[in-house]
């Protein structure tokens, strides 16, 4: 079978890969074939029949030679019946007619059948105006109906708080059911009855127990499933649609915001654009609500005489600049620290650190505010291939083996989770999930391997996997010096048996997991904040780099290790040098030749010593060594690892500047608060977990009194005497693209419609293979392991400002294994006190057998639950004591 075949669609001959479906070939030939049930992420089904076309093959005469007609053209033997284009693959020489009398008549017939029971209530249907059935009824349908009988009707249902079902409108294309199975792995929808009585609903007709992602609504080609939060809010033609990048997780999904007037009314996927096309998770779809919250700050605030009072922007800028200048003069620039920024756009991140390094002269810059230990600025870069062409999300779903280390992707990056589920269903991907809890991907229905490690043994596990990988020898395709280093690493690590004891996973399982990873042609290792915010982060990320090289996920040519950061632009923050020891593009400030372009551009001599990292800044501020803090887009009171210390730090600082949308707990303790613009109110670039640069558009103008962070930085820089004159983010981006290794040659125009992944022609850092050994851990102590992690419905301090997400998330619960709870005498719903070294939190308990015994799981991101009150984790993690304080109310 040849790799490509020639096919003629409506007289246009094109060449497409063998195995292409007729509908896809037609799209290639720019011929429109209508589609309802087919979907690019779903296997062919052929349920709706609207894509019927006439198909023929050249007639063959004696000797299997094509018969030619009188005009010399080959004669076509048309199949006697029309075929569905979405299930038929093309063959060489195939002819397809979509506009012949037979095809048109067939399509009209199908359309008539589809409309037999359709209520045609387009004027009151939320889909009306963007409904594919409506469009096709206009295009292909007859303008009258021969159906005189009554239509069959169903009762409409609310399937939970998100999905409204109007089954009368349903054309039973099964897209929603299949999408939920194939992509979400939730199996929440099903078809009841059969034939004409088929009705889509949940299995027990109860509210859907699923991720509430609303993708069933998105893929519904008609108005059978509509979104309750958007119900009757607007018609599609009322909305201006702007494509921006979702501000939540690092997958970087494109979100199409529908804006009427100044209000964002809905968010949708983009269908054909972005990394996600139609997909959005629940946060992407309903998490925009904070933008129009009435609690937004409407002007900068200044603390003059004890309390915060509204001030003009110029006044606030002048005050901030003067105070920064005074403190730098009195205590030296190292008394100033810049924190946060991984929720900003790339240009703003660049300006933020330029303000710190180039204008004020401090290298105390760190975006990783949740970190509990210092992690070198280039550690993640090395672990993800040092700028070598990296794995795309699409390739991730086509990998043979994917190893997910430590993160619950459901909470951290739902789209990455969905792609892995899709890969498992359609592309033969095998999952290995290393997580103490049985997270969604570790469920047996996904056919993967769950490495249920004991909490605190993360480093041992990664080292054991590396050791097991190296038992088969050094993989091919690694540079020579890596090969030598790996050989010595193998002897340093010993055998996987040692790791088996500590992790609680048998050596055989470890060997099998390593073998699968090494043997797979296409492989992927995914890690994220669970490891980078771990007290042993430096050793863990080094261990991941070792594992990458040892398993062949990192080679001289490619990198198949993906870092799923904590925020949507965490990768950008690393790239832009929001780390104390690296300039943009991971340039080492000690390297005179490499830092010269920055010094020339910024007109300043740079501070060569590495600055303080976020946990060190926290400590220094609490001890009074750092006098001024600028915290951007971060609720540091909640995100800092130690509550007592952060309170003391903010108390002791002479100047705290906060950029935020809301008067957060951090902002309340600040001296200057700048009202910032939200993601929808500014233009810029975000870098996602595959290192793809994506441009987001401005959907609405900023709230009165609020400004984009970049403007604030520029105003303060000018107040400090700098001569910055950027008019647009594009100006900043041009400077970034000129200076930053890895970004060189990128242009603003190139970033649409789908931006490129940045790569570096030469790796930005050499391989470093070293045995990863944890720093001498403090006494682990007794008590339960405190497990925390992301949760699906909430992420960050913005997510609980809307209406939908907090409602879906419910209240924070401490999750305990039933056996563990029984030992502690705790029942479902009881109130428990969790006490750590620093303090305690009180919340209700839930029994959950996905949580291992000997530990308690509380997601962060809940508004009312501040886990940092427990004290900072140290060593291999945090140990807490759990006790019951009140029994559950009966009937509550």
């Amino acid at each position, binding site marked *: 079978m040849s790799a490509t075949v020639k096919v003629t669609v409506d007289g246009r001959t094109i060449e497409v890969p063998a195995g292409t479906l007729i509908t896809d070939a037609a799209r290639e030939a720019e011929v429109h074939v209508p589609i309802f049930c087919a979907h690019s992420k779903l296997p062919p089904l052929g349920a709706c029949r609207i894509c019927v076309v006439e198909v023929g093959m050249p007639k063959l005469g004696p000797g299997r030679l094509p018969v030619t007609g009188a005009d010399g053209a080959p004669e076509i033997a048309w199949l006697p019946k029309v075929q569905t284009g979405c299930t038929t693959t093309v063959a060489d020489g195939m002819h397809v007619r979509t506009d012949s009398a037979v095809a048109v008549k067939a399509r009209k017939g199908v359309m008539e059948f589809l409309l037999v029971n359709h209520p045609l209530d387009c*004027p*009151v249907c939320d889909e*009306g105006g963007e409904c594919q059935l409506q469009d096709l009824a206009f295009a292909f349908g007859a303008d009258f109906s021969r159906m005189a009988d009554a239509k069959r009707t169903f009762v409409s249902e609310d399937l939970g708080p998100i999905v409204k079902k109007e089954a009368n409108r349903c054309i039973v294309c099964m897209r929603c059911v299949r999408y939920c199975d194939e992509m979400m792995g939730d199996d929440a929808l099903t078809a009841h009855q059969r034939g004409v009585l088929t009705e889509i609903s949940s299995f027990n007709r109860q509210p859907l127990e699923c991720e509430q992602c609303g993708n069933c609504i998105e893929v519904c080609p008609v108005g059978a499933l509509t979104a309750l939060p958007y*119900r*009757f*809010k*607007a*018609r599609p*033609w*009322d909305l201006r649609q702007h494509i921006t990048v979702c501000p939540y997780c690092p997958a970087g999904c494109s979100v199409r915001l529908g804006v009427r007037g100044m209000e964002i009314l809905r968010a949708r996927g983009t269908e054909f654009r972005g990394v996600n096309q139609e997909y959005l998770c629940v946060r992407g779809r309903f998490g925009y609500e904070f933008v129009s919250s009435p609690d937004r700050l409407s002007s900068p605030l200044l603390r003059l005489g004890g309390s915060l009072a509204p001030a003009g922007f110029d006044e606030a800028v002048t005050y901030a600049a003067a105070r920064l200048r005074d403190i730098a003069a009195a205590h030296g620039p190292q008394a100033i620290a810049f924190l946060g920024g991984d929720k900003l756009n790339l240009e703003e991140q660049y300006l933020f650190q330029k303000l710190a390094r180039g204008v004020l002269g401090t290298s105390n810059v760190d975006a990783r505010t949740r970190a509990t230990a210092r992690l070198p600025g280039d550690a993640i870069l090395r672990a993800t291939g040092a700028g070598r062409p990296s794995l795309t999300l699409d390739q991730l779903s086509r990998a043979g083996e994917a190893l997910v280390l430590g993160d619950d992707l459901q909470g951290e990056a739902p789209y990455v989770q969905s792609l892995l589920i899709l890969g498992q269903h359609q592309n033969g991907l095998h999952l290995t999930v290393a997580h103490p809890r049985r997270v969604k991907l570790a469920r047996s229905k996904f056919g993967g391997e769950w490495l249920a490690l004991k909490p605190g043994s993360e480093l041992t596990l990664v080292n054991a996997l590396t050791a097991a990988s190296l038992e088969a020898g050094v993989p091919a395709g690694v540079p020579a010096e890596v090969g030598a280093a790996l050989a010595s690493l193998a002897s340093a690590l010993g055998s996987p048996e040692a790791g088996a004891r500590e992790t609680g996973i048998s050596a055989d399982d470890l060997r099998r997991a390593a073998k699968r990873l090494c043997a797979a042609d296409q492989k992927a290792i995914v890690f994220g904040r669970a490891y980078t915010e771990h007290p042993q982060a430096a050793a863990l990320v080094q261990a991941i780099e070792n594992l990458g090289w040892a398993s062949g996920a990192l080679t001289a040519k490619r990198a198949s290790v993906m870092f799923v950061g904590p925020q949507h632009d965490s990768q950008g923050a690393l790239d832009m040098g929001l780390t104390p020891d690296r300039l943009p593009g991971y340039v080492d400030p000690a390297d005179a030749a490499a830092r010269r372009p920055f010094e020339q551009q910024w007109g300043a001599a740079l501070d060569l010593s590495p600055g303080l990292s976020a946990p060190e800044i926290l400590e220094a501020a609490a001890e009074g060594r750092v006098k001024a803090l600028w915290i951007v887009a971060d609720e540091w009171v909640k995100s800092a690892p130690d509550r007592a210390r952060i309170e003391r730090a903010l108390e002791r600082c002479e100047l705290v500047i906060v950029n935020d949308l809301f008067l957060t707990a951090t902002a309340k303790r600040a001296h200057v608060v700048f009202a910032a613009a939200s993601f929808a109110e500014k233009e810029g670039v975000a870098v996602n977990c595959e290192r793809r640069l994506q441009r987001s558009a401005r959907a609405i103008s900023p709230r009165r009194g609020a400004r984009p962070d970049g403007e604030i930085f520029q105003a303060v820089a000018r107040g400090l005497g700098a001569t910055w004159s950027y008019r647009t983010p594009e100006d900043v981006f041009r400077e970034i693209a000129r200076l930053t290794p890895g970004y060189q040659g990128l242009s603003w125009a190139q970033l649409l419609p789908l931006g490129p992944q940045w790569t570096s022609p030469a790796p930005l850092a050499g391989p470093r293979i070293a045995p990863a050994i944890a720093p001498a851990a403090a006494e682990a102590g007794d008590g339960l392991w405190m497990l925390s992690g992301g949760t699906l419905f909430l992420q960050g301090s913005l997510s609980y400002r809307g209406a939908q997400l907090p409602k879906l998330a419910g209240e924070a619960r401490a999750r305990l294994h039933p056996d563990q709870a029984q030992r502690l005498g705790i029942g479902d719903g009881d109130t428990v006190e969790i006490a750590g070294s620093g303090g305690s939190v009180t919340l209700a308990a839930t029994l959950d057998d996905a949580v291992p015994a000997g530990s308690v799981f509380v997601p962060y991101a809940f508004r009312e639950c501040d886990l940092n009150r427990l004290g900072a984790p140290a060593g291999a993690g945090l140990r807490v004591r759990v006790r019951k304080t009140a029994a559950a109310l009966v009937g509550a």
Partner: protein
Amino acid sequence: MLKELGQGLGVTLGNLFKKPFTVQYPEEKLEMFPRFRGLHILTRHEDGLERCVGCELCAVACPADAIFVKAAENDPQRPNTHGERYAERYEINMLRCIFCGMCEEACPEDAIYLEKNYELSDYDRDAFIYTKDELLVGPEKSGYLPQR
């Protein structure tokens, strides 16, 4: 020449004794033709519920972009319309309206008609934005549809 003068004055004299066309507005008003297009009304069903379901087809049909509609969901206990949806806000900017009648033609519910009221002058620009209260007919006119 005298002859022509006489003919001309004859016409004048003839018209002098005809019944005049002039109407003494505003004391006296003309009866409008059935298809006259004046100020819009929003009609009601026989049971007094509004006909308008807030589908916005009038707004999208309007060539002058004079109509603004914001729909909302009915409270099942006290519905405004027969269906689930009603127009929470319905506004017509009469300074923009060109009285073309496209809204009436687009309406799938017979909810909007251009009626015979042409007395639309006012002193204030804002007063020309007719809101739903001003457009919706009173409950005494439930079931009334203009004959065309």
